């Protein structure tokens, strides 16, 4: 066991060369590769962390937006519901008003028809009563209805209170109007003279008298002058008849509604 100094020296040189070569071809590249990989992994982790943070931020933002959208949707939905309710109420009210209006119109129409019917009824009933009374009086007692009406008119003139009569006469004299006698029937000359004599007798003879036939009076006679009117007719009777018909008709309508 001895040392060969030449070999000893060569081995030192060999070792140093080997150390340099391995540093050049082994340690350096391997360490750099590992450091690069660690750096890449660290960068990737940083990127992942960054991306995750971004994703979490975006997720939070989207959650916030979704909540806002949900909130907005609820508000809009509530508003739409409110508006629909308002619209419904408005149109229901409008429909009710229209129905009420139509109903009132219908009631008015019914009322008009009723009044027209009652008026026609009154006219027809008056005409019939007049015609029947006239025939009955003629057949039973050879009396003229017109004459009886004139008599009734004369009786009414007679029954006027003295003060009232003077007031009427004064008014006639002051106004200088002509006195108008309206009858539902045509007067014979005799009847006209009789009326003239009655007026001259109970009021005044200083007035001109005109005669006019008005069929609507129905079995009646009216005197108009200087703002005064004196009449006799079957209106009261016909009004009672109309009232009874109206009552019966209203009862029938109410029964029909029920």
């Amino acid at each position, binding site marked *: *066991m*001895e*040392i*060969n*100094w*030449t*070999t*000893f*020296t*060569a*081995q*030192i040189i*060999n*070792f*140093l*060369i*080997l*150390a*340099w*070569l*391995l*540093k050049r*071809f*082994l*340690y350096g*590249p*391997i*360490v*750099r*590769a*590992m450091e*690069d*990989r660690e750096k*890449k*992994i660290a960068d990737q982790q940083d990127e992942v962390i960054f991306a995750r943070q971004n994703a979490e931020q975006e997720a939070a933002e989207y959650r916030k937006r979704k909540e806002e959208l949900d909130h907005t949707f609820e508000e809009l939905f509530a508003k739409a519901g409110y508006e629909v309710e308002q619209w419904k109420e408005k149109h229901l009210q409008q429909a009710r008003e229209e129905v009420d209006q139509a109903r009132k119109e219908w009631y008015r129409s019914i009322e008009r028809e009723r009044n027209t019917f009652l008026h026609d009824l009154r006219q027809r009933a008056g005409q019939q009563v007049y015609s029947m009374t006239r025939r009955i009086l003629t057949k039973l007692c050879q009396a003229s209805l017109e004459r009886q009406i004139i008599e009734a008119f004369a009786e009414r003139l007679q029954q006027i209170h003295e003060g009232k009569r003077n007031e009427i006469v004064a008014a006639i004299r002051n106004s200088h109007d002509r006195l108008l006698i309206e009858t539902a029937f045509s007067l014979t000359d005799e009847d006209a003279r009789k009326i003239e004599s009655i007026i001259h007798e109970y009021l005044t003879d200083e007035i001109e008298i005109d005669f006019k036939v008005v069929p609507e009076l129905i079995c009646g006679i009216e005197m108009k002058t200087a703002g005064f009117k004196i009449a006799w007719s079957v209106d009261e009777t016909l009004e009672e008849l109309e009232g009874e018909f109206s009552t019966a008709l209203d009862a029938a309508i109410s029964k029909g509604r029920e």
Partner: protein
Amino acid sequence: MKNGTSHIQINIDVPLWPDGPVVVNQLNGTVLYTWVVMVVLVLVSYLVTRNLSSRTTLSRGQNLLEVLVTSLKNQIREVSQQDPGPYLPFVGTLFLFIAMSNLLAIIPGFQPPTASLSTTAALATCVFVAVPLFGIASQGIGNYLKQYIQPSVFILPFNIIGELSRTLALAVRLYGNMMSGAVIGMILLGFVPLFVPVVMQMFGLMTGIIQAYIFAVLAMVYIASASQTHHRPTARNQSSSVSRTAPDEPQHPTSHDSQSLTHEGDL
């Protein structure tokens, strides 16, 4: 075995071509096999590292070398408690050279250079020189030289003797282990030529790796002890995973060496 069975001698320092030219006649097996080991190491390193990948998918060769380098760095870091970067080429090359030399001994006809006292002495001398160089580079020449007179100037001769003796121990230990393995293999080959030498060769592989590890770790311990005097308190504060030093280890580097040498003696 040159002189029959009565005298077994393995000497690979004998020139291979004594009658060759001036330089070639000095070429012996130690240098030749050292070159073989160097070529193998450098060639493998070059072939693997010329196409390195920094991605997460690696070639098998790169994976192997990365495991190797990482293990070396971890061992150096554990021993020195310092950044392994500056020490890696030196200590790593010691380990790789010795380990590869011993591993290649499995090949018939290959004589490991580490079975030559010239080689082990050369490596031990490299360590002997590297220790003060790393120490001076780390803490300055004044602080480094001050270690030799700590705790007293009378310790100086013992420290110098310690430096020399551990270098000698390094050289002789490796040489003795490897040479003895080779000699035992030769002897057994003469007596029981079948099977037993194979077992001894396999055992020699393990011994070779262990010796490479011991040599490299001891070199690192020597270097670390020379370069970390001022860093010792800091190192002690760290959660050290060094298991070779006792918890109540003295702070003096020489004592540290003694502790390490004590373990070395166990090995």
